[in-house]
């Protein structure tokens, strides 16, 4: 399984990854993080290809990590 892991407290909720993912694997959650933003979440079980686009478009440092062929896909 591939997935993108988004660190809730490093995300500023800009939605750029959400708009960019070709497989629509990411959504904006309802909860607010430590720095006051609604944050993006990887939808478990989405057809992620580990293409890395969400990682590259994200303006934050270390907010997105992309995993390829991992067992644990809970994002």
């Amino acid at each position, binding site marked *: 399984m591939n997935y993108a892991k988004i660190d809730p407290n490093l995300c500023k909720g800009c939605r750029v990854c959400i708009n960019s993912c070709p497989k629509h694997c990411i959504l904006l959650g309802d909860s607010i993080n430590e720095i006051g933003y609604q944050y993006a979440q990887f939808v478990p079980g989405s057809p992620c290809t580990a293409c890395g686009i969400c990682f590259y*478009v994200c303006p934050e*440092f270390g907010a997105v990590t992309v995993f390829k062929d991992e067992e644990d896909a809970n994002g």
Partner: protein
Amino acid sequence: MIKHAKSKALYDTFERKGTGQKVSHYCPGCGHGTVHNLIAEALVDLGITDRTVFMSPVGCSVFAYYYFDVGNFQCAHGRAPAVATGVRRVLENAVVISYQGDGDLAGIGTAEILHAANRGENITVFFVNNAIYGMTGGQMAPTTLVGQKTLTTPAGRSLTRDGGPIGMAEVMNALKTPVYIERVSLGTPQGVMKTRKAVKRGLSYQVEKRGFSFVEILSPCPINWKMDPGSSRKWITEHLEPVFPVQKFRDVQSGTAAPEVPKQPKVLKGKALLKMLQGESAITELTESAMKEDQFVKIAGFGGQGVLSAGMFLAKGAIAEGLNASWLPSYGPEMRGGKAYASVILSRKQIGSPVVEKPNVLLAMNLPSLLAFEEDVQPGGVILVNSSIIDRKVTRDDVTALYVPASDIAKSGGLIAASNMVMLTVYLAYTGTLQVETIKKMIPQNVKRKEHVEKNLAIVDASIAYLKEQGLLKT
């Protein structure tokens, strides 16, 4: 398996406000962070993190040095290419990055970028063009579009009143020297992936020592464009790209004739440096310094007491004896009477920063200087007090205090202005840092008025005589 993760070229935590921070200072959706990530990835991929020196500009990316775990400079507004040139010329193996916004590069810094490019400096410039002054709250930039509303063009930029947007990549392309010029865009994910390639190429050309690379990146400033991050990316594609065409302007492929990279002059050190500064006759015979430990010297007094020149004299003398030296003057706008300090460091090792915060030697030429710096002196340090005009004693008991009637000795020698030379001589002779002979050899080259040379030499002798009289000199 981790396929994409935060680059090791970025610090784990950012010590900007307090410690342990992990988030950037950028607004949500700002393009700077994306460009930072791409540069950081390329540094690791190319294995050049440890030899990279990064010029942060003035603008929103002013704090880039909090993020990049490389060598860093924060440059004055627009001057990054000039600072980069300096680093390029002295650090042969450094990978030098000039990172700049459009106000910085295309506005206040137009001269610097043009000439660095024209010289074909082997550096890489990342030009983040967001068509606005971001940091200062959204004023018109040189790259602002005609009709674009900004704080300073509330009705939109006017071509006839304000001129049109400057295409910097096109300007670069008018020069013969650059080897690589490309404009890319963060408007779409595909554009980001192209930017990734351009960033890496711009750096690898420098590693191959091919010359000047310029990567212009169209980048969003959602805050000052007053858009959400998603719309700001669309706006890049729909409005910026038609005016600033995304294109590779030049790519001098390997194998084809690259413009000749300017030869980097050799770095001058020690005697060679002194010869360049002062001519062949500067120092006849060089002695090896007997300095016991690194000297962090603060010379302080009022303007006109020769504080700065004493510092310069000391630094030159140290270089003459094969040491490394730095001299950092600090003075008010007035020529005479204001405060004047010189910070001098003498070391056998390379000197990183010329700033002296905790001196181990203080030459206090007047009372305000003693009051200002006494507390800063390291325990075990030496404080020389010009006792002719300071009647206060040193209050600390963990330092050595020497009271020298410097102004009186100088006056007896017929040259009151030479009290700085008395202080310097006493300091050097007492601590054995430099040979008094070195000082005497330097006087003819450094004292401007010939009739003062003899007097200065006599005052040096009188200073030594005073030290002996006081039983402060062993020999």
